[in-house]
Every structure is written in C-alpha cells, then in structure tokens.
C-alpha cells in the first residue's frame, strides 16, 4: 500500500499530528481532562500518554478556565500547548481566557508577546448527549479578532490543518466534529501542513454552489450525488478555516453557478453562514445570482435528547437535497 492510499480515521489523524509535533518540537505538549490513561473522552489522545508520559500529556482536574489559562501562560512563556476541551460546550467555562486573554494579548501588548496555542474541542450533535454537550459555537470564535478558527471536515485536513495550527504563532481554535472521529480517509504519513485560510473545492459543478463546514461537508457531498441523479450539477466548497476566511473561491464559484446554498449545523441566527451570505451580497457576485441566497441551518433551538428530535434539529442529507432542488426551481 503506498503512502497515498493509507486510510486512517479522523481521530487517528489528529493523534498522529500531535504525536509528530511532539516528536519534532519539545515545546509542544498537551493538557486536558482525562487525556492520560483514559485516552480522552473521544479516544483521541489514545496512546500519546504512554508514548510521551504524564508531563507532556498532562491530565488535569475539571477546571476548564484554569487549564486554558495555563495554556495561555505556557504559550506566553515559550511553550506550544495543545489544550483539549472535552466538549466544545465547556469552552463556555474558559471564555475569559480564550477571548479576553489569548485572543487579545498580542495586540494589547503592542506585539511584544505571542500566544502560540491550540485549543481543540469536539463540537456538534448526533450522539444523544443533549443540549449541553452538542452545541456548535464556531460563529462565536470566528467573531473574535485575534483567534483563528479551524473546522476540519476530513481525516486529511484533521491532520494537516492541526499541524499548521500548532506551527501558528497565534491562538487557534480547532473544532472537530464528534461524528467525524470514526470516519476514515486517506492521510499521508509524513508531517504535512495544510495552510490555514484556503477554501477547499470538494466537488465542482455547474448549477449550484453548496458551501458547508464540518460534518455538513460530507452530507453536502452525499446530497450532491443525489442531486446529480436529478440532473443538478453541484459544487461543494469547504472554507476549512472560518478565520482567516478565504472567500474568493466561494465568490468565484457562486458567480459561475448563480445559485448558492449555505449549510451549517449551528442555528442559523447570526451564524457563520450569515457571514458568507453577507460577503456574497456585498460583492459583485450578487449580480450573478439567479435565485436568492439560501441558508440551511440547524433550527434555532437547543439540541434535544430524543434521537428523532435531535436529527430533526440539524440538516440531514435529504434536507440538503430538497433545499437544492427548491433553489433550482426558484431560479
């Protein structure tokens, strides 16, 4: 099997990236709850504890604010910490350190200091964990100047973007969708970097542009297959990083197809796709639209527990197909 064909899971890709970064650079270390012998709530850290020991794969008490703050301090003092927050919902506990400290220190100090840290956290619904364990708060982080925000949609990106995030001299929030951890894909073995700020064109089509992030990328691709059978030729674009946002490929594709569907799991109101819609609407691409912009988002509700309620709360493949067909009809 050649390197290019090797398939590993998204969780393994994250682990591999961290392992390679820790091997290459003494300054890199991990801290988080139950990342030691337990191997992480989602099994991501796995054997890193055995390989690197308790100092560099540092199990912590349940103190999100404290550990994120410790990462900020360690980064300021020259280390390259990677914090794992068990569920991205618990970033709420640590917002002061993320937003008031990490994001602003470089600016506030007039450039005299840097905060090269990575905060990884699983987001999203689909596991029956209900409202306090299933949120998608990427829009918040994207709204905060000083943070970079990454949402890898594939195993390959989970590795390449994470390695780029670890290299970055700024605080980077990496939001991993928990339903993706067990999905697999080809991932090069070497420690490659995928630059932050490059929209990926996952599929190219003539009739409709779908922009999607996180777990919605694979749903959009699946929907695109169905739509293809209905004669609708779909592009699927994945911004991959919300900040910095590489908008040009999106504007170009929309200008070409004249129709755009923006898909996210998070509630629609003041979400990330609101920004994409705004960027399109303030660009000349606006004049190429054959139909109004369409957003398909999670309902504006907390994520419910019951499986049928939970899946009704966020876009599923048939919803994307339907929205795509409606867009075609409208134009």
């Amino acid at each position: 099997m050649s390197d290019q064909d090797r398939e590993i899971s998204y969780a393994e890709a994250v682990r591999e990236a961290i392992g390679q970064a820790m091997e290459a650079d003494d300054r890199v270390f991990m801290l988080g709850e139950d990342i030691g012998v337990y191997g992480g709530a989602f099994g991501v850290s796995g054997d890193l504890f055995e390989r690197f020991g308790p100092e560099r794969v540092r199990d912590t008490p349940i103190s999100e604010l404290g550990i994120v703050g410790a990462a900020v301090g360690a980064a300021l003092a020259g280390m390259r910490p990677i914090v794992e927050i068990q569920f991205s919902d618990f970033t709420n506990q640590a917002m002061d350190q993320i937003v008031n400290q990490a994001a602003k220190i470089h600016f506030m100090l007039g450039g005299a200091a840097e905060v090269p840290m990575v905060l990884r956290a699983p987001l999203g619904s689909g596991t029956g964990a209900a409202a306090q364990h299933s949120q998608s708060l990427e829009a918040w982080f994207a709204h905060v100047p000083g943070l970079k925000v990454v949402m890898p949609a594939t195993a390959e990106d989970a590795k390449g973007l994470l390695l780029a995030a670890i290299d970055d001299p700024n605080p980077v929030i990496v939001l991993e969708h928990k339903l993706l951890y067990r999905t697999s894909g080809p991932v090069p073995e070497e420690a490659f970097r995928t630059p932050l700020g490059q929209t990926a064109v996952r599929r190219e089509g003539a009739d409709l542009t779908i922009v999607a992030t996180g777990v919605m990328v694979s749903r959009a691709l699946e929907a695109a297959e169905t739509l293809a059978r209905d004669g609708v030729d779909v592009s699927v674009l994945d911004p991959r990083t919300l900040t910095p946002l590489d908008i040009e490929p999106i504007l170009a594709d929309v200008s070409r197809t004249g129709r755009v569907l923006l898909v996210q799991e998070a509630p629609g109101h003041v979400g990330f796709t609101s920004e994409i819609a705004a960027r399109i609407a303030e660009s000349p691409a606006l004049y190429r639209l054959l139909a109004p912009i369409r957003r398909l988002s999670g309902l504006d509700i907390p994520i419910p527990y019951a499986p049928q309620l939970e899946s009704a709360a966020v876009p599923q493949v048939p919803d994307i197909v339907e929205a795509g067909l409606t867009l075609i009809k409208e134009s």
Partner: protein
Amino acid sequence: MAHPLSDPATARQALATMWEIRRFEEAVDDLFARGLMHGTMHLSIGQEASPTGVCLALRDDDAITSTHRGHGHCIAKGADLTRMMAELLAKETGYCRGRGGSMHIADVDTGNLGANGIVAGGIPIATGAALAYRLRGDDKVVACFFGDGAVNEGAFHEAVNLGAIWKLPVVYICENNKYGMSFSTEKSMAVENVAEKAAGYGMPGVTVDGNDVAAVYEAMETAVARARSGEGPTLLENVTYRWKGHSKSDKNLYRTRDEISEWQGRDPIVAFETRVVEAGLLGRDDIAAVRDEVVQKLRAAVREANSAPDADPSDLLDSVYASA
C-alpha cells in the same frame, strides 16, 4: 424527615429507596446494553446511600439540584419511576418530554430543580434558589449535589462563597466517589478530604461514610437544621464509590479490579439491611418483600414507559421560549 433507623416504616422507606435506585440503574444498564437507550448514561450503583440519606433529612417542599449522575437524587426526592424511565426512553411522557434525557432529568414538583450535564453547573443554581427562598421568607432548604470532580471548577468556589457570606439555606453535598471520570482525588487535590476546603469559606466541613445511610442522614440533619435556622451552609462530603464505569465509554483503565471489588464489599444496601435486621426493625421477610415490590415497580415502570408515545418533534420551535 426521620432517622432511617428510628422506626420500621422509615427503615423500610430508606431501604426501598436504595433498592429503587439500584434496580433503576440496573434496568437502564440493561436497556442501554441492548441498544434500546440513546445517548450516554452515568449510573450511581454503589452510591445509593448518599441521595437516600440526604433526602430523608429534607422536607418534601425542600429542593435539590442534581448532576449528570442524577437518577438516584431524582428517585430519592420522590420522582415517579415511570416518567423517569420514559424520559430516558425518549418518550413524550418523560419528565422533559424527551428533550432532556438522563443528564437533564428534573421533577420540579417534587423539588428536583434539575440534573445538570455541566460539572458544577448546579452549584450556583442551588445557591440562587436558596437566595430566592430567603428573599421570599420561605424556610425551605436546598440540597446541592455534586461530585468530587466538580470541586475543582470555579463555579464551586464562587457559589459556595456566596452561600457562606449570605448564610443561605443550602447544604453543599459532595459525593466523593474518588474519581472525576478517570482522574483521582489523590491527583486532583492536594488535601485528603474535600471537606477540608470548607474552612476557607468559613463554613463547617464534614466527611462521612457515604455508604452508611444513617451516617449520611445524621450529618445531613445537622446541616439542614443549621441551614434552616439561618446559620448558613455546610459542606458535607459523602465518601462513596461507583461500581460501574464513569459512563458507557469507560474502559476502567485508571483503577484496579481489586479496588472495585473491595468497594463492592462495602455495598451500602447490604450494610443497611444487616443493620435493620440487627436492630430488630425489619425481618428478613420484610426485606425480601421490599426487594420484590421494587422489582415489580421497576418492571411496571419499564413496561409503561416503553408503551408511551415517542417524543413529539412537531412543536420543537415553540419549545424554546416560555410564553407570558
């Protein structure tokens, strides 16, 4: 509101509550293993004496706040097993209409203000409820449950301090089962007992054998009296152990078989049964009857819950905001 060893009826009630918790958790474990339950579940098998002893010392109109490991609290405060099971089975008749599930189970009518998926999330809430009772001139008390892991959260610190400076009618109850998921209390704090933290807030701290329902009751009774009379909170630490993994994904790598079986030897229910028999409060046949009744009750609960209608997605969008 009587000592579990004071009379046969109370002894029977305490025993029945502990068995209800045990059997409820076993039923959940079973349903989950058979793929009939969704999400994740945090079981309190082995910890039954703590909620039972605590709630015995409360009045019906007193309140509790609970945790992710909250089935026992909910049962001990008086919730209906069928509606609890229905919630876990994602039914419309569940306490939360299937919207909350295990981690958000609540029964406001019996004074359970809610489980909480957020570690330590309930501690400020309990404190605020106690403040409300004070402001309203009620003499209600709030029992606030949380785990040893929760003690490391800022929320614990801020809320307990508010309770202390305002002398609120709340009892802070740490169910110290030695681990916050996989991280042991030996590692997570540099003191022996959680109760040692009380002094820094100017309140009493008491450590008891959390597997001894009578000991829990006694400590709680003192704490409740203190709280109700306006002298302020107590930090009560019930030392106990969970037999099962933290949640369904736990491989138990962080603790030994020996440790687990040692604690299984300290079964709070067996211990209490022995004591009530020794005290001559109940006979072996009474105990057998209690067990039987509980088994029947659980069977009925599962059956009824199973046949209830599934949670209804039609009004999801209308469920977010309360209307005036």
